[in-house]
């Protein structure tokens, strides 16, 4: 079976980790890596893996899109250039997975709403934030059983896994995640908190999810929530094997709390950086769903 061919825009840590994940995929094939620095380590690695590369940004890729049949592009650059990248890629009919905070397309958490994005014919989906990818499946797992008035997540990541972009604009994380808790998680009001912990050796990513239900759940509802949480855990594990519910769900009147841990796969990024891994894994998952649809239409 032929695979759907992909390009990575941005040759940093995220782009490089994506390349290794795509190489394992049965339906996706990484063929281009796009950077802006000829001396970039990511471009060198990509060449070693047999990919074509350019250091001239998206302009360097555009003339080759038809010949190389690139159908999906991952944008791991920055919010500032994403709109421009998207406009050019769209003109060539390429679907775009946006890993920047630009969020032009619908916010996407694959096990919750990727099917809906496909149904609506989206050609650009945004991968929210690392904290959002880790926690929103669980907000949804609770709220699909019993309506939530409020959802709150606390994402704690190792200091070493927070790059300069995240640090310079930490409000972006707080705002985008809170919005996605509401829109994708399905609760009326969302709040997101992020904490950086510098302990050595670096801590694994851990996340806490609190949902305040509209009414205190009875025993049957509590059981249904617990089942829903387990089912969602298994679903996320299909693309993030190191994802686990550490404790919970804990029930306390209207409050439901779930404690999570995310161990990365260690493809290119270290295992403790579960926060980065879950972004690239979710993006790969979204691309896979795009690809399966493309292959069905053939």
């Amino acid at each position, binding site marked *: 079976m032929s695979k759907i061919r992909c390009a990575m825009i941005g040759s940093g840590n995220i782009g490089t980790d994506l390349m290794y994940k795509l190489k394992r995929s049965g339906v996706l094939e990484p063929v281009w890596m796009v950077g802006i620095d000829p001396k970039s380590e990511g471009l060198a690695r990509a060449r070693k893996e047999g990919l074509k590369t350019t250091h001239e940004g998206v302009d360097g890729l555009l003339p080759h899109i038809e010949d190389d049949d690139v159908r999906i592009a991952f944008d791991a650059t920055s919010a500032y250039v994403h709109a421009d990248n998207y406009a050019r890629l769209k003109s060539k009919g390429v679907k775009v997975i946006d890993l920047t905070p630009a969020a032009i397309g619908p916010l996407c958490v694959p096990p919750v709403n990727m099917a809906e994005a496909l149904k609506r014919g989206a050609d650009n989906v945004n991968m929210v934030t690392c904290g959002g990818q880790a926690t929103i499946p669980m907000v949804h797992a609770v709220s699909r059983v019993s309506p939530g008035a409020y959802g709150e997540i606390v994402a704690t990541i190792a200091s070493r896994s927070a790059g300069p972009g995240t640090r310079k604009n*930490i409000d972006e994380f707080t705002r985008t995640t809170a919005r996605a808790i509401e829109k994708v998680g399905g609760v009326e009001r969302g709040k997101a*908190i992020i*904490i950086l912990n510098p302990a050595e050796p670096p801590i694994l990513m851990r996340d806490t999810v609190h949902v305040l239900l509209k009414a205190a759940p009875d025993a049957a509802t509590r059981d249904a929530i617990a089942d829903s949480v387990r089912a969602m855990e298994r679903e996320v594990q299909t693309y993030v094997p190191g994802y686990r519910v550490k404790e919970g769900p804990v029930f306390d009147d209207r409050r439901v709390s779930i404690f999570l841990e995310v161990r990365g796969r260690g493809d290119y990024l270290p295992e403790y950086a579960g926060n980065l891994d879950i972004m690239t894994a979710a993006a790969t998952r979204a691309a896979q769903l795009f690809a399966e649809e493309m292959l069905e239409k053939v």
Partner: protein
Amino acid sequence: MSDNTPSVTLHDMSLRDGMHSVRHQFTLQQMKELAAALDAAKVPLIEVTHGDGLSGGSVNYGFPRHADRDYLEAVVPIVKHAKVSVLLLPGIGTIEDLKMVEDLGVHTVRVATHCTEADVGEQHIRYAASRGFDTVGFLMMSHMVGPEKILQQAKLFVDYGANCVYMTDSAGHMLPEDVGEKIALLRAELPAGVEIGFHGHHNLAMGVANSVAAVRAGANRIDGSVAGFGAGAGNTPLEVFAAVADLYGFDLRGVDLDALMAAAEDVAVPIMSHFDALPRISREALILGYAGVYSSFLLHARRAERKHGVNAIEILKELGRRKTVGGQEDMIEDVALEMKRATQEVDA
């Protein structure tokens, strides 16, 4: 008064750090009474915010009785002498919160980060400085790293535009020699125009001694709370520090000690009694200081003990071993559940 008499600006924390002790449940009236008493004592600066800063209201930290804005609107108009500050922890609050307080007459914005993560406060400090606030960078849990790291992080705050940098002993773990060494390095290396502050907690009863050490090493802003109203065993008791500072001959810029003692005894203590929140170096508070754990974890650990039947002392010790930082209140229930499970597995 000689030129080398240290001049110290006192900054009262009872309406912010004290929020931790009352689970963020101050009434507007209680806030106003305490603010008026502090104002009468000529305290130059008082902080009014949720215990965990602007937008701290949450399941994780506790929902407050009133919004930050309501508390500020109650306090700012009634103080004649004192200026009002707000606290912001990047990752919890955002620049929108700073915009929200801009029209409320707030004088000082303090941006707090863990002592190794100053760069997450860049956008907030730049914004506050650009809007003309007295802008403070606040390095929490400063016992966890050495003087050079504190200096490097403090320099980042200064580069972003802070006119004052704080070394914060959030766990009440530091000893006077450590405080003196770190503050002296800051004073020697930071530009003369940058103020230096110290925020202590009293978990090991060192709040006053540490604050004196800070001033002698070059700090000129000192945080404390009347009657120690604050997290853990409380903040540096402000009226006690004021008395000691007077004996040392520090210039407290007109603070009225008698009125400050009255604010502590006649206003703060009855409010704390009302909430059953009189600060004391309880066994748990002592462990916070001894193990180097964030002071506001205290009440959350007691709650986890009640709900899950795991000893609060053991929870706090474990949190110390895991090098948790400020804001990681969610780890308390997580660790309690893990310890409970471990006990059950041994029993089984």
